[in-house]
């Protein structure tokens, strides 16, 4: 059954960007605004760019508000606030004609752009100095002005500010309030028609959170029953580890900062061997240090979850910028034949559910599971529906070999390891060669369950055995898991968007889902219908689903944020199909406009058989 949901049209779609340099506090300013919006019935989506340096460099937050689910940061903004010249130069192109430009006239020279926009100079620095004696609070001046323009509930804002700045001390807080006030009043003579006033909107139902993708991973891990993490800080993954460190003790879990990534993955392997559900978050450079231990985990079949919040590379690269360029590493990056699973969430909410799924798969099949986020998902905040905890269930112990279902807000099942039965313990074979490749795993402390987990090739009992036949047999056993999972996928309904007779198909993965959806929506408005498939499981790929999707396609577009077309290469390796690459490798998320352009170009091709001509 193909799903072809009608795209719901939105009455409201408003985008604000606040830009300045690192240290200006634009992110705080924007996040407070977003928080206020999130308390209304609006959906909120934020995107953050910030420099890798401690000081200076371009920094911005973009906030999108809609009355329906939001899938991307959007392309053109309705309101732009710039703190300095660089911010103006970098952002002015994305301001819609007729949009509002708020800027500090003391530092921004708007040049010849004056006619296309509504210009609203606000002397941020001067006003901050006047109100507080220093320029530090200029972001609060801006926030005050925006609060006025969007009709914020000032009482709520004060509460939010107090929560946020509680640790800064009385004096700083007082200054913030003074600056806020100054901005609020200064904006009184600006004429901006937003169609909405935040304070007048219905408050949200109680079941929404405003969280980042990284926070979603941390919360997903906790919901999945993870009670142990060991990590080493690395941008842009650090907030996952920081959030877990803060929250795990509250649920009886433990978090340890290790001396490096090798120690981190070693510690979670030890903890998983000891019986816990474990996770370590990292990014490309750190992930690479974990390679040897990842192969060990494949060999000794210990369940672990690794999160890679991708940043632009190679090497140190662009630590705070987004890219989808660790896919080939995730799928192939190990010596020897090392089976593992790779998942890629498509957005903030999905990060929560895919994290739960990562644990379920790791525990059910005893393989390392890699969760590939990227900076743009990790740092983006979005309103996420609170899952229904009454519908959360443990997979029945009597059915431990049940396949793992895909969790959703209305039904989450939590999977635990298959443990040996009393009979099995009588002559325990840790690496029993079973139909699905997975064998019962004894928890230390269990009498009779003692076994050896060795990185050397071993027999079903775990005893080292390097004979030719045993190596073949056990290699097959380990890979049978992936075959089994692939077969399980065949039972799932085919899920793609768009009509099955559309001849243009798009495949993407991870964070580009929203941009592709929006591009398709606009293409449809221009009369071009397309299909769209966005697998959450990167490896093993859901083969049957993709094969069916590929049927009768004339043009296949593969959308990804990297230079060489890693996903396209992989799809070709699996299905032999050629594709047109829709790629971006600039450290920034691809926009729906950029995708739309290629769709329209492809739709205009006359020679329909030649799909590689772009």
């Amino acid at each position, binding site marked *: 059954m193909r799903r072809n949901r009608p795209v719901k049209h939105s009455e409201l779609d408003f985008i604000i960007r606040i830009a300045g340099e690192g240290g200006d506090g634009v992110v705080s300013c924007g996040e407070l605004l977003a928080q206020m919006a999130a308390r209304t019935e609006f959906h909120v989506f934020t995107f953050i760019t910030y420099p890798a340096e401690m000081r200076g460099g371009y920094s911005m937050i973009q906030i999108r508000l809609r009355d329906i689910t939001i899938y991307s940061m959007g392309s053109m903004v309705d309101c732009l606030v710039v703190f300095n010249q660089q911010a103006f130069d970098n952002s002015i192109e994305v301001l819609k004609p007729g949009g509002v430009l708020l800027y500090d006239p003391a530092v921004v020279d708007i040049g010849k752009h004056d006619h296309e926009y509504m210009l609203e100079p606000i002397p941020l620095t001067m006003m901050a100095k006047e109100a507080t004696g220093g320029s530090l609070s200029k972001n609060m001046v801006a926030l005050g002005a925006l609060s006025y323009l969007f009709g914020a509930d000032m009482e709520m804002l004060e509460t939010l500010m107090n929560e946020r700045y509680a640790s800064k001390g009385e004096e700083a807080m007082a200054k913030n309030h003074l600056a806020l006030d100054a901005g609020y009043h200064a904006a009184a003579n600006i004429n901006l028609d937003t169609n909405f006033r935040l304070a007048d909107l219905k408050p949200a139902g*109680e079941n*929404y*959170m*405003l*969280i980042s993708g990284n926070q979603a991973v941390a*919360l997903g891990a*906790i*919901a999945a029953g993870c*009670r*142990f993490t*060991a990590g080493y800080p690395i941008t842009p993954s650090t907030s996952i580890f920081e959030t877990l460190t*803060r929250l795990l*003790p*509250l*649920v*009886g879990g*433990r978090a*340890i900062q*290790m*001396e*490096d990534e*090798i*120690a*981190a993955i*070693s*510690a*979670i*392997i*030890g*903890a*998983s*061997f*000891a*019986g*816990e559900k*474990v996770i370590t978050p990292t990014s490309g450079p750190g992930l690479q240090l974990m390679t*040897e*231990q990842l192969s*060990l985990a494949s060999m*000794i079949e210990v369940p672990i979850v690794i999160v890679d919040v991708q940043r632009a590379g190679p090497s140190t690269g662009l630590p705070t910028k987004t890219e989808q360029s660790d896919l080939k590493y995730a799928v192939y990056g190990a010596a020897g034949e090392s089976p593992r699973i790779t998942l890629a969430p498509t957005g903030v909410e999905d990060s929560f559910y895919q994290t739960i799924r990562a644990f379920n798969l790791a525990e059910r099949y005893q393989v390392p599971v890699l969760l590939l986020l990227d900076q743009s998902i990790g740092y983006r905040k979005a309103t996420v529906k*609170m*899952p229904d*905890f009454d519908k959360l269930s443990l997979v029945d112990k009597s059915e431990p070999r049940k396949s793992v279902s895909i969790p959703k807000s209305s039904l989450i099942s939590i999977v635990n390891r298959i443990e040996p039965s009393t009979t099995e313990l009588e002559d325990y074979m840790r690496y029993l060669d079973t139909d699905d490749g997975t064998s019962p795993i*004894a928890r*230390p*402390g*269990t*009498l*009779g*369950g*003692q*076994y*050896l*987990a*060795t*990185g*050397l090739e071993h027999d079903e*009992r775990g*005893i*080292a055995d390097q004979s030719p036949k045993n190596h073949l047999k056990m290699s097959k056993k380990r890979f049978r898991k992936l075959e089994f999972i692939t077969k399980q996928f065949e039972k799932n309904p085919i899920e793609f968007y768009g009509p099955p007779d559309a001849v243009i198909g798009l495949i993407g993965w991870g964070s580009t889902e929203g941009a592709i959806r929006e591009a398709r929506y606009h293409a449809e408005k221009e009369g071009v219908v397309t299909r769209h498939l966005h697998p959450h499981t990167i490896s093993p790929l859901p083969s049957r689903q993709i094969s069916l999707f590929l049927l009768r396609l004339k043009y296949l577009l593969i959308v990804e944020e990297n230079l060489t077309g890693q996903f396209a290469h992989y799809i070709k390796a699996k299905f032999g199909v050629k594709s047109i690459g829709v790629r971006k490798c600039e450290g920034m998320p691809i926009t729906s406009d950029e995708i739309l352009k290629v769709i329209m170009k492809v739709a205009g091709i006359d020679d329909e058989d030649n799909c590689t001509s772009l």
Partner: protein
Amino acid sequence: MKTTAQVYKKEAVKPIWCPGCGDYAVLSALQKSFTTLSLKPEEIIIVSGIGCSGRFSHYLNTYSLHGTHGRAVPTALGAKAARPDLTVLAIGGDGDGLSIGGGHLSHAARKNPDITYLLLDNNIYGLTKGQASPTTPGDYQSKTSPYGLGEEPMDPIPVFITYGVSFIARAHSFNVKEMTSIITAAIKHRGMSIVYIHSPCVNYQALSWDKLREQTEKLPKGFPVKDKMKALEPAYSKEPLYTGIFYRRTQPVLEDRLDRITETARKNRHGKSIGMSAKEIMEDFR
């Protein structure tokens, strides 16, 4: 429960060390220590590194993990932090523990998990057939130092002292009895203990056995084990080469600190020590 050393032996697997290898003595001492302490084999986790010494985990009827080269200590630390109820040991060679894995020790020492680490020094890379290790004497002509190495060998015990390891001892494969009592004390010690064991290789004798045996001497009775400055002198001494406990102190262990963190976190949140559900946690993000 009273057990015998036999209980800890994995019957199905026969050690494949060379006849005369020092590691046999360590295996026997370890099994005796388990017996003395009446530990249940199913409540022991052994993590070993790679090397001849890394084979340890194959021969014991415990929960055993034979991991990769150099990572036994952080792996054992993770196991202990997750399961404070179990007895956790790490085992490895001089290459495994001092060369590739050397960077983990100071941090494990600072965390002080209640694990015991047996470091089996044969002054050579045994398994890979005779390359120089961090403790190979500078004039020994190994396969990777055919013209003599010239590097200064490492002095592990003084290093462990400055790392703040909370229990440090040296033992010798010649003396299983003493080794057994030292390992027993190490396992009993609450905190990270290192037993540094001279376990000579019969194939590549980078240090002369006979000389080693001759020079070995027990630390004097009443040695002040709590004074790190006093421990340094005998720790550096080569002649005599002291065996026994060099240093021991009481220091909060990782597992307890993690418990305290849980307490603090909950008190900060509620004012009391009660756990929260995932649902409650998520409500904070509304």
